[in-house]
């Protein structure tokens, strides 16, 4: 395949091991192009990704899916505001983002830590007796969805269902019907939850948004719906992928595992380094008006894939960019994006990643990949292991 002119982010080689592909592209064609699924551009340099992220006038967030949704827009869309703030540009973006930020502030996130720790401890205790586990499906996948369910005020018992919808929307871009059905089910569920809260509001994010007034007017329900759907979609696959990739790294790098166990002071740097090296999230932008960027003739309507993961491996910015150095001190990574759309949940994601790894290592200090068993990865919009069979001890 010619990655420079015909790349495919769903190709198993790209999903499984994108790093050498990005290295080659950075050298030969730093903004690659592909005409599969419309006209798409793929920058791989830090400088280019951050420049595009900051140029919101030319690069709109009106569609952020890496693989375009197929099928026709209904005449009266269910989500006229999209999924604010992620799929909006200023001015809508500015105030809808402010509605969400306080829920994920540093202080607020600290209040979610005890339940996260309890959850992780219970999960890993349940796995220990068997002496082996699927660290992705049995552990990583179980954590973020339950924390988000708590914040949204929806039952944790439905976690597997929520996870299924989110995966349908984000991971099965090649199966448009499955993707569409997942989104429909998710919307229908939140619609009924909104209805229920009109009579008996609680203190959860959904209830509070329903009661919020902006400029003396209550928020449009479609906007609340879009924001609630976004929090679930953005908060689950992403964080579980980061936890899974980090566990994959620790299963395959005994030295790093031992260092983390021995050197408590290493943790803050190590978490940032794991986020840099295994950044899970790629987003998209839609070009507004023809523009030449880095010598590339981009046309109105073209899609640009915001390759935060490749930017984080750019040797122009990171020394020994392809090595995981747990004590890396200079680490200006953009795993959570760059510019006005900086991940609103980044404090929460960091806390969940740290607590998940702390509790796992406390219970299972020694583990490795199960011989002969296959590790599988999802990719495209969100990259991380989906099956990670490990044995303990």
């Amino acid at each position: 395949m010619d990655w420079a002119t015909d790349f495919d982010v769903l190709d198993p080689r790209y999903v499984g091991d994108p790093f050498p592909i990005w290295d080659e592209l950075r050298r030969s064609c730093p903004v690659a192009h592909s005409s599969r699924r419309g006209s798409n551009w793929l920058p791989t340099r830090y400088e280019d990704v951050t420049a595009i992220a900051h140029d919101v006038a030319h690069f709109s967030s009106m569609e952020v899916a890496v693989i375009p949704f197929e099928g026709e827009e209904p005449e009266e869309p269910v989500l006229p505001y999209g999924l604010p703030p992620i799929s909006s540009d200023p001015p809508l973006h500015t105030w809808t983002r402010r509605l969400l930020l306080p829920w994920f502030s540093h202080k607020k996130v600290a209040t979610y830590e005890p339940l996260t720790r309890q959850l992780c401890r219970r999960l890993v205790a349940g796995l220990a007796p068997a002496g082996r586990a699927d660290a992705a499906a049995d552990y990583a996948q179980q954590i973020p969805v339950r924390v988000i369910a708590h914040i949204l005020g929806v039952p944790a018992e439905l976690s597997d269902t929520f996870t299924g919808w989110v995966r349908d929307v984000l991971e099965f871009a090649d199966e448009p019907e499955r993707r569409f059905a997942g989104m429909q089910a998710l919307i229908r569920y939140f619609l009924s939850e909104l209805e229920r809260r009109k009579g008996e509001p609680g203190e959860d994010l959904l209830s509070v948004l329903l009661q919020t007034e902006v400029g003396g007017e209550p928020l449009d329900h479609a906007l609340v719906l879009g924001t609630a759907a976004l929090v679930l979609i953005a908060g689950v696959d992403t964080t579980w992928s980061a936890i899974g990739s980090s566990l994959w790294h620790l299963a395959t790098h005994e030295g790093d595992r031992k260092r983390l166990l021995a050197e408590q002071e290493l943790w803050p740097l190590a978490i940032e380094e794991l986020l840099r090296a295994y950044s899970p999230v790629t987003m998209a932008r839609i070009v507004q008006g023809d523009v030449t960027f880095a010598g590339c003739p981009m046309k109105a309507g073209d899609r640009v894939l915001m390759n935060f993961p490749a930017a984080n491996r750019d040797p122009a910015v990171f020394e020994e960019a392809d090595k995981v150095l747990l004590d890396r001190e200079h680490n200006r990574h953009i795993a959570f994006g760059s510019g006005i759309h900086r991940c609103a949940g980044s404090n929460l994601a960091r806390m969940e990643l740290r607590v998940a790894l702390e509790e796992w290592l406390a219970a299972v200090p020694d583990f490795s990949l199960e011989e002969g068993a296959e590790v599988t990865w999802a990719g495209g919009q969100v990259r991380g292991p989906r099956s990670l069979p490990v044995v303990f001890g």
Partner: protein
Amino acid sequence: MRIRIDPDRCQGHARCFAISPELFEVDEYGYSSLRVEGDVPPQLEEKARLAVANCPEFAIEELA
């Protein structure tokens, strides 16, 4: 040593606060401000330099 945060650049990544809660505080929207006026205390200079080097938005600068 003196540092400055450019409020127009800060996007609330909170990396500075994680490195040095002595030097930085973040509000409920994530935006950072300085807790010290004037010179950075000598024992915090190293942390101030790390904050400058880790802010993804290049929002913290060392003043000459």
